[in-house]
């Protein structure tokens, strides 16, 4: 799964099959250019090598998934939508900047929704509950630290 901006900048990448880094970069570059070249009214699905690409644009961000031939395209589109909904709910009307500055959160949230490339939990409530629980754990431990940092005591 890839997330990239209209300018072709990669914002998030998640690979569910092992690939060497060099190949990852090559695939990413090819996909980004292919998708950016497509016009708005075109079909959200396209065949690419032996995979199918499902993509959708939300504001300035493109969300793109590579799926296998017999996977369900429409539902993949809705997984993307559900992910966007989750991000939106969590950040409160999400924008590209939220994802840049909180990239680790975006990853954690994706891990709750999809695991190993399969849907793990489709309930919005349950995913948000899990993420909220994580945040709670963080706040317990980080209070003192961030205070120190405010004072400029740590680099």
């Amino acid at each position, binding site marked *: 799964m890839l997330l990239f901006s209209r300018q072709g900048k990669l914002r998030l990448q998640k690979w569910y099959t092992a690939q060497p880094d060099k190949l990852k970069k090559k695939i990413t570059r090819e996909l980004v250019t292919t998708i950016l070249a497509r016009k708005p009214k075109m079909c959200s699905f396209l065949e690419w090598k032996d995979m199918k690409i499902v993509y959708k644009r939300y504001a300035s961000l493109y969300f793109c998934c590579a799926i296998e031939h017999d996977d369900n395209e429409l539902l993949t589109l809705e997984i993307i939508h559900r992910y966007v909904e989750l991000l939106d709910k969590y950040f409160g009307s999400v924008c590209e900047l939220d994802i840049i500055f909180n990239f680790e959160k975006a990853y954690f949230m994706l891990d709750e929704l999809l695991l190993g490339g399969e849907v793990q939990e*489709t309930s919005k409530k349950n995913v948000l509950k899990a993420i909220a629980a994580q945040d709670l754990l963080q706040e317990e431990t980080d209070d003192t630290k961030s205070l120190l940092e405010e004072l400029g005591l740590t680099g």
Partner: protein
Amino acid sequence: MPAVKGDGMRGLAVFISDIRNCKSREAEIKRINKELANIRSKFKGDKTLDGYQKKKYVCKLLFIFLLGHDIDFGHMEAVNLLSSNKYTEKQIGYLFISVLVSASSDLMKLVVQSIKNDIVSRNPVHVCLALQCIANIGSRDMAEAFNRDIPKLLVSGDTIDSVKQSAALCLLRLLRTAPDLIQLGEWASRVIHLLNDQHMGVVTAAASLIEALVKRSPEEYKGCVSLAVSRLSRIVTSSYTDLQDYTYYFVPAPWLSVKLLRLLQNYPPPEDPAVRTRLTECLETILNKAQEPPKSKKVQHSNAKNAVLFEAINLIIHMDSDPNLLVRACNQLGQFLSHRETNLRYLALESMCLLATSEFSHEAVKKHQETVINALKTERDVSVRQRAVDLLYAMCDRTNAEDIVAEMLTYLETADYSIREEMVLKVAILAEKYAVDYTWYVDTILNLIRLAGDYVSEEVWYRVIQIVINRDDVQGYAAKTVFEALQAPACHENMVKVGGYILGEFGNLIAGDHRSSPIVQFQLLHSKYHLCIPSTRGLLLSTYVKFINLFPEIKAQIQEILRNDNNIRNPDVEIQQRAIEYLQLTSVTSTDVLATVLEEMPPFPERESSILAKLKKKKPGAAEDPDAAGGKSSPPTVASKPMPEISVNASYQPQGASGGSADLLGLSSSAPPAAAPASNDTGCLVDVFDMLGTGASPTSNGLTAAADENYKSATTPDLEAGPDKIHEFVCRNNGVIFENDLLQIGIKSEYKQNLGRVGMFYGNKTSVPFSNFTAEVSLPGELSSQLMAQAKPVDSQVEAGAQKQQLVNIECVTDFTVPPVLVINFLYNGAQQHMTVKMPVMVNKFLEPAEMDAATFFQRWKNLSAPAQECQKIFKAKPPMDGEQTKSKLLCFGLSILEDVDPNPENFVSAGVLHTRNQQIGVLLRLEPNSQAQMYRLTIRASKDAISTTLCELLESQF
């Protein structure tokens, strides 16, 4: 800077905004290097870092990596974080590991140890983290380490739901990585029963795992069928409020429904009648729901609903047993064919392809033929048009073949480059498969060559020859038709090949007509000879020698051609050898021997069509034999069909060698074919060739042996292409761009607006195969943003004497000045060879001519008067000045010739549009020759700065 949620790693946020504020790529790299140095010193410093600091630095490294930079340290610190008790530190540690550490890393042992500790933790969030890490990396080591623990977690009654979900998918990942290591044994049935779990999330996760298990051993997991059906039934009959948060835009549990429907596609229709009835009811309900008015106008609602519907249709097609359901499915898809959502039209076309293969619905699909043909014409998205082509191919049978083939041929003229080759194959197969009247077949294939000659692969034109040879009722017609086709002033090389072959075999059938008398046939063919590549010339030489046998009256003329220095001393050994041998053969042997040698080709043995094989290779899975459809739907016609399932004769098998295609008698010395069809009675022939072989003809082996010597010394000569060979290609699209003793590189290209399709041909001139052959297109410097080039991979092995083809798709993003570079590497006799060759792709290739009247021209000319928009050059004429040649150069350059614009008729005025992805640039030109001074003055104006200079320089090199 937006608010940072959750924990505030302030240092990280500051760093990210620094990066974002960088104005240039250089500044960004500088900032990153500074940060890397800082982190490195912190990690190396003797002051021990606390967990928070480690977490922060690891997180920064991760960010830098995600920006696309390489990270070569910090892995150890990340692994240390895994053993932290603090959740957030652990979490960042795991994230870093899943993104950055490869399964083969030495650190994996440590990672596995940490996971082991976490997986037995009493804190479920730690267990989940560990499981997610396994699911993300899923190495073999992990499968070995955890193949007992995870299944236990999955089925244990104490495990909480979220852990169960992760465990299911984690196990799925390991199953995919190392199927041999995952055995559930006695737990199998408990895993199946997860389909009954109360928690929908658990069922959803488990369904994926179960499908993978089912694929591996269907018998063992057969019990899941009835469970899946009853679960599905409960979902589809529930109202959307029942499932609470698992309802997605008024659709109850779409993901789970789809997974269950897919799971069922692994089994035949259920045997138990009760289960079967229940499943049929489910599918009917889903079809009924599709007819209900939507509960929401949101696209999410319709997507989710239709996702379930399409999956249900897939299952209906898979079961292929209930005509009622199949026809209903087909009608439903028919509605989607004219839906306003492009996505739905695409999917409907795709699913209908499958329906067309079912005997129950094939006829129902055919009702939509008009709509599909319309889609081919009007869809704006090439991927949708591609689906329409596939569907037409699938729905084709004897009754509609003529219509469909005609429509496909019409479409071929304007079809996208990317799908032309496949379309050609499909048309060729359909024409052959459903031909009742073989004259129709011959017409179709010749049309194919006329319309899309470049895309007609060897298999296709071999095939038409095989069929003509095997069917004597069509031979006369074929000879007459190719003869007529060859009369066109410009005909494709493939047409010459087919024409040459067929006339050589059956020219006598039309020789009675004085309009196609032997000498006329010969002269017609020979008028194409000098335009052809060597392999085709070789084929034509064989045709000529057959003519001597068929028409002794023109023997003298033909021998004269063979004797011509252009042939008998041709630098191409194949042509030279043929010329010499044929000349000798026709001079030395008696007519009887000649008649035996040049006897008509025997019929080809029957085999699977090589075209079909090629299509299958090109699109595995997508290229069902249309017979699968036609066969089921109309068994009687197919069974009685006298189809010549013939295939390539040995010498016709594509040999990879460029010369192979023309090798009709098996005389080629470089690649001896398995059988020489016509030489089965060659007692005295051997003598003829022995006599020749001793000195008269230098064999290719002899030539290359010398070349071999040069390179055996394991040196690695770095070969550069000649400096300005590239200028020869400003006005040409095809030809040889590079050649040395080892390798010949040819190019064949075509351009349409801002897109180009370039075929590169690599010919191995030696007698030794090249290995590790790679050819990559490099876009140096700025060019990488100006041009896009996608090169298909080329076979890594290039056999001796063989030629390999590589397709490069090029898109002009914006104007550019330097051409792309081809980087070629291969091993020759163990020595590494490296060469770089400029590709003749210049900006003028993306020019298209424009027509306008004088008034418009001058108006536009005036508008482009800024200094940067104009470039003028005055230069001396190199080749003699010739008005006609200048005209054709300008036309080939990509511009129009505008008549009656310039008051001086000696001058040339042209216009064109330069297509780039970003914009279209108008180009105007005026060229004033001064024949007394033998000078030209060239002025170009363009609507974008600097382009006029680039074009001026390119064009100047041509005069």
